[in-house]
């Protein structure tokens, strides 16, 4: 009887561990999928769309703004806590707007929390604007954007949560001068 009880206990614990592990694996896959999607999406945008220098551009920000000449800006931002667009109130997601900030839609998936989103734009002044006062262009540096992204899958069980981060840099392919 004792042997049987021990066997059953071991089996049930092993089964539960397997279930937990398989959950972690699927959550990890979901995170990786989102990381890939967001980095590819932003890479493509930055390559082909000029950086929006119309406002003040800081070296580090949580919003990416890109705007073609005479066009409408595309923006990606890290949503605030409790943003109703982010599925649940405990999730901070990435939001994208293709109409200059008029309307927003989530870029990341359900249950995925964005722990950190940094956008590093360099240079902070446009190399395509001529400063007549100084008699030179504002910068001689081709624009580039570095994206740092950290995400967590918000599983109900805290022990099953998975966190991953990724960073990529994209040099603009816009040759305006």
């Amino acid at each position, binding site marked *: 009887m004792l042997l049987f009880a021990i066997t059953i206990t071991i089996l049930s614990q092993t089964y539960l561990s397997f279930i937990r*592990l398989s959950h972690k694996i699927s959550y990890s896959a979901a995170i990786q999928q989102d990381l890939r999607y967001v980095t590819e999406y932003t890479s493509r945008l930055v390559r082909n769309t000029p950086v929006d220098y119309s406002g003040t551009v800081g*070296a*580090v920000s949580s919003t990416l703004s890109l705007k073609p000449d005479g066009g409408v800006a595309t923006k990606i931002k890290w949503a605030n806590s409790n943003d109703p667009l982010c599925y649940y109130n405990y999730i901070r997601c990435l939001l994208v707007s293709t109409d200059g900030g008029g309307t927003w839609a989530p870029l990341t998936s359900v249950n995925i929390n964005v722990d*950190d989103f940094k956008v*590093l734009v360099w240079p902070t002044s446009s*190399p395509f604007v001529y400063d007549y006062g100084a008699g030179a262009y504002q910068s001689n540096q*081709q624009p580039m954007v570095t994206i740092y992204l950290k995400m967590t899958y918000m599983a109900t069980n805290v022990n099953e949560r998975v966190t991953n981060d990724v*960073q990529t*840099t994209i*040099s603009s392919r816009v040759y305006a001068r």
Partner: protein
Amino acid sequence: MKIRTTYDVRRTTSGRNLPGQTIIEMLIVLFIVSVALYGVTTLIFSNLALQESDADNIQAMNLAREMLELAQNKRDSNWLDAQPFSVGLNTLAAGCTLVPRWDGTANPEFAYVSDINQPAAVVKRSSVSNVSGVFTNVSGTSTQYSRLLTVIPICANADHSVTTYPTGVCGCATAPQTNLIGLRAKADVKWTRRGNTKSLTVYTDLYDWR
């Protein structure tokens, strides 16, 4: 009415033992269950290892791609600055194996490092407050990744009829390939996971097409 099952190991009123599970049967069952569990465990743990490997690969690929983008950015910035396209890439005195010096707060530059096993090639996580966590080769907490950019000249004859990739040199000083028309940028990333060293390499060719 009393019902006796085959698993009842109690003695009957006549004192005769009834058939039941013996320890040998139990051990056989345990053995079979253990073999099955071993198979499932192996499957799940190899799946977990694959997921970890996938996550490492994504990060390593992006770190490699970042170096290529920084090299391309350097070429493009040289054009804007009216400099030869390869300045800062193949013009460092010591050689053309490089690491990026980019922490988000100054113009990106490259510095010479002899090989990927040098401490300067280790990728760090920045601890500067506004860029904390960001990967950089400048300073911070060391990660499992190391990276190195190797610049190889793309040279041609004066009539552009021959293009070769001399190794071990940074320029096209050796005749007949005296005309530098581009650079091949090779990004290597190396990392360790559970004692195993892994690596990946990506290339891009940067031509002086302006």
